[in-house]
């Protein structure tokens, strides 16, 4: 499929103002459905603005994934920079065989696994930032005091339940939550079959639901 993309027009709705394009529009011819892959190719050919667009699209999701995996803000910052450094370093060899997001989260997953090998342990215990509290309730309840209290309690239960998940189930669950990848793509990232990934996700979701339900019951 051929289409034309204006780089200035592809910033995501929640893109921070500092990433808003400032220069006149430049046109990039698309040769596939994955606009991110085309942006990556444009960056590899020297277009810095393509990288800025790419970065603004994926920075938040990638950061959330790494924070929830590492459970430490400093480590997540280091891993985040390492992932993007690998993206930058691999720009000349990049080939759009899969979605860019798959490529990005594969790098993130590998960076995290490398980190775990370096420290010879996977992070344990609940230490996710309080921002996760906002994830647990519908948005329309966000402003009321009782909702805030309930949110804190839910957040603690959620973090505790997430911490009890086996690492492989947590990997699949967090990739599903943060990366927007399909099960097949998550399976490719984690190096397992699609059925295995689905099974792990099913167990993870079941355990989280059970943990939250048990905590809510008197």
């Amino acid at each position, binding site marked *: 499929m051929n289409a034309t993309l204006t780089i200035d027009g592809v910033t995501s709705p929640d893109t921070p103002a500092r990433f808003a394009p400032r220069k006149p529009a430049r046109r990039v011819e698309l040769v596939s459905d994955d606009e991110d892959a085309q942006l990556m190719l444009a*960056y590899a050919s020297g277009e810095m603005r393509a990288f800025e667009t790419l970065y603004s699209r994926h920075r938040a999701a990638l950061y959330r994934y790494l924070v929830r995996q590492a459970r430490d803000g400093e480590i997540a910052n280091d891993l985040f920079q390492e992932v993007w450094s690998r993206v930058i370093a691999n720009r000349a060899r990049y080939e759009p065989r899969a979605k860019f997001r798959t490529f990005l989260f594969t790098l993130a997953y590998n960076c995290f696994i490398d980190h775990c090998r370096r420290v010879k342990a996977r992070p344990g215990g609940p230490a996710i930032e309080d921002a996760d509290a906002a994830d647990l309730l519908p948005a329309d309840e966000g402003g009321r005091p009782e909702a805030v209290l309930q949110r804190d309690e839910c957040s603690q239960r959620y973090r505790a339940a997430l911490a009890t998940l086996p690492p492989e189930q947590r990997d699949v669950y967090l990739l599903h939550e943060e990366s927007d990848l399909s099960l097949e793509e998550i399976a490719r990232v984690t190096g397992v079959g699609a059925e295995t990934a689905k099974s792990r996700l099913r167990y993870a979701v079941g355990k989280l639901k059970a943990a939250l339900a048990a905590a809510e019951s008197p």
Partner: protein
Amino acid sequence: MSGPDDEFDDFLSRRRPLFRRPVDDLQPPEEVDRVVLRRAREAIEIERPQRAFRGANWGAPLAIAATLLVVFTVVLHFMQPSKVLPEVSVQQVAQPVAAPAAPATTPTWRGDSQAWLAQIEKLRAEGRDAEADAELAAYKREHRALAVGPDR
């Protein structure tokens, strides 16, 4: 067992209905953003001079090879004539001898009429009458041409 399967597939199709809200405040620090973007910019800015320098990498050996070729050719050119020079000089000498170059054999005494006449007298004194007659005829032709040429 289709109940849990359907419920799970429904969960997968809805994506993130359980634990996420539409807007998440968790963002990388601005300092981290700056570091990443600076690295990305530096990577492509450094690459441009490297590409230009890569041209010089193969250009330098090519220039050296071309210089050596020119030097070798010049040296060969100056060494070759010293060996072949005697043969060439013999040919150069032989060619004018074989050619019927009449003007080159003109005697010097013909430039001066007195000397020319003295030479005729000398030839007659030596008994070379034929040559003396030929010289006298030539003398007359020459001087007749001079006499009638411009005035007529």
